[in-house]
Each structure stands twice: as C-alpha cells, then as structure tokens.
C-alpha cells in the first residue's frame, strides 16, 4: 500500500460519504458541508494523479497540483456564495427546506 493508493481510497470514500450527506441532509448548510467533502475527495484524486506522475526529477506532477489549488479557491468562492444565500434566506424565511412542495411556487403571478 503506497500513500497514493491509500489517498485514492480515502478520496473515493470521502466522495461516497459526501454524496450520502449531500443527498439526504435536508439542511442546506449540511448539504454545503457535504459538497465540500465531495470536493476534497475529488481534490485527493487529483492529488494521487499528481503523486503518481512523479517523474523527471519532480516528486509530483505539478499540473494537477496547480489545478487543485485553483479548484480549492473556486470551491471556497462557491461556499461563500452559498452561505450568503442561506443566511439571506434564513433572514427572509424561517423554513430552510429545499423541498419543492413545502413551499409551493408563488401563489400569484405578481412576478417580475
């Protein structure tokens, strides 16, 4: 078992755990946490790809690692937008459920 295999399996497990939480947890912030778990699992897959790609005097392939850094930033930005949206929603509405029927489509057409 070399570190990259272990990390790969860890990554896959994290993805699985995240998927489970993302699908089942009704609370949007919990979904967001689960999304971040999936995300870190995915980054680990990049990580082992980079680790396996050690060659030419490098102990890793720099390209996937660079992508992970970009990915982490983007994922953070996503989390920030989501958190802002969740907080805004909580200020406007006490029910945070995303269930489509709990909050029917606008009852009237006084739309935009």
């Amino acid at each position, binding site marked *: 078992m*070399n570190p990259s295999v272990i990390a790969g399996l860890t990554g896959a497990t994290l993805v699985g755990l995240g998927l489970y939480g993302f699908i089942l947890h009704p609370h949007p912030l919990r979904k967001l946490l689960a999304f971040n778990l999936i995300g870190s699992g995915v980054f680990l897959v990049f990580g082992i790809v980079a680790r396996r790609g050690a060659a*030419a005097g490098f102990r890793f392939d720099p390209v996937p690692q660079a992508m992970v850094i970009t990915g*982490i930033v983007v994922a953070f930005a996503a989390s920030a937008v989501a958190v802002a949206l969740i907080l805004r929603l909580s200020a406007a509405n006490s029910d945070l459920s995303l269930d489509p029927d709990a909050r029917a489509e606008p009852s009237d057409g006084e739309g935009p």
Partner: protein
Amino acid sequence: MSVLPYLDVGLALLVVAVAAWTVAARALFASVVSYVAYGLLLAFVWIRLYAPDVALTEAAVGGGVTGVLLITAGKRLGALHDIGPDVRPGVGLKLLTGVLAALVAGALASVILLLPDPPPSLAPEASAAIDSAGAGLGNPITAVLMSYRSFDTMLEKIVLVLAVAGVWSMTADEAWGRAPSPFRRSRPYAPTIFLAQMLAPIGTLIGIHVFWTGANAPGGAFQGGALLAAIWIITMMARLAEPPRVDARWLRMALVAGPAVFLVNGLTGEFVAGSFFAYPPSVAKPIILFIEAFMVLSIAVALPMLVAGPSSEGSDQ
C-alpha cells in the same frame, strides 16, 4: 520497516472518521466544527502526497477561512433554524442512498486502482519547459499557475471577484452601500484583541514571505494572500479595524487589481512577447512577481469580504 505506511493508514482512517462524523452528527454546529477539524487533517494528507503547496492552501482555506465562514454561519443558523423532524429521510431512503453512494464510491475506488501504469505525467514536459523557457521559477507549481495555465489562474481570480459581487447581491436593498456587519457586535474579549495585535505584524510578514518564496519554494500568491486575509479577518474580529463600505472605491479597485493587472499583462504579451499571456523570457520572473503582488492584494481583500458577507442594516455606525 518504515512506520510511514501505518501512519498513512492511520491518517486516512482518521480523516474518514472525521468526515463521517461531519455527515453523521446530529447537531448542525457539531457538524460544522467537525468539518473544520477535517480540513486541517486533510492538510497532512496533502503533505504525504508531496503537495506542500496544496497543503498550505488547504490549511489556509479549507481549514482556516472556510472554517470562519462556516462557523459564523453555523452559529447564526444553529439555534434558529433546524429542519423539523418531519422532513428527516426514512430508513428506506437512507438505505437506498447509502447503497448508491457506496456503489459510486466503489466504482471510483476501483478505477483509481485501475489507473494506468506507468502513469502519464506532464512532469517531464514541465521540467523541460521550465528549463528552456527560462521563466526563472524554481517552484514548478507557480510556473504552471502563472505561465502554462495562467489563463485559468486569471479566470479563477475573476471568479473570486464575481463571488464577492454575488455575496453582495444578497444584501437587503435598504442596506446597500453600507459595510458588512462586523463579526461581533459587542466588544470583543481581551485575548482576541491581544492575539490580533500580536499576530497582525508577524502574520503580515509571514504572508509576504510565503508569497515571495513561492517563486522558488512551496508557497505563492494564493497562500500568501490567504494568510494576509486571515490577519485582516482576525483584526476585524478584534474590532481593531471595521469592515469597509462595499461601495468604497479603494475596495473595489483592490478586489479587481489582481485580475486586472493580469489581464492587461496578458494583452500586452501579444506585443512584447508575440502571444497573449506570454512573457518576454528575459523579464519573465519580475513580471510574474509583479502580477502576483497584485493578486496577493486582491486575495487578501476578497477572502475577508467573502467571509464578512453582505452588508446589513445598522452596520454603518
């Protein structure tokens, strides 16, 4: 032989256990705290994968800034809104989800084990390119980020700007133009103030150091910027500084400085180096450091703004 494989397995188990707790915890806040711990642990996994740059980023963002963001949110939401028991999923659904998620994870694990051997890699190309192009960068990751995939990096910075705009768009209309709400309403505790006072100078120094060494060693604009961002956040938490108004011109300019300088440089590349986003070989390193400096600024401003959230009413006194 070596104890390292056992440590690796132990670390992996720990990470998975904390992740599982994040998913399984009943209370929202417990889950959030668990996630923050998870983010820090993950940094060790990255070290073991010979990815110190990623580890730095993960620690600074995954554990640090995201932690503040989530804990703040979790605290605001935790007591107020929990989804009632009526929408809790049933056992059948849990089982089905578990099985399908496990199947996907299993499939993923098996294809990871099936990845080709010898593995394909761009490391040789990167190595050769770094040598020949004379970018003058000892850290291949910085070279990739700032040179080969500079387009991605610029886009990513624009994503940050856009995220800030997105977060600000969640403002209530009446509150537009004001400053984001401070992290604490009441006067902070003395230890917080002390910590902030002590950390601010050291942290700033370290942040700049991390950015500067990034050219040749692990570190770089993002990691350095994230550290500076953390310092600003702590300073604001200690109320040694107040968040700026969202319509402050300097704030906007600081936020776009990084991508804007990047873009302008990318344009000029066509004329001075024959191609958009190319650098003249002789001055590649100074130019890259120049761009990175502005990126540090933008990151150091953008992350706290993302964490601080939209401005709210009554936050303007």
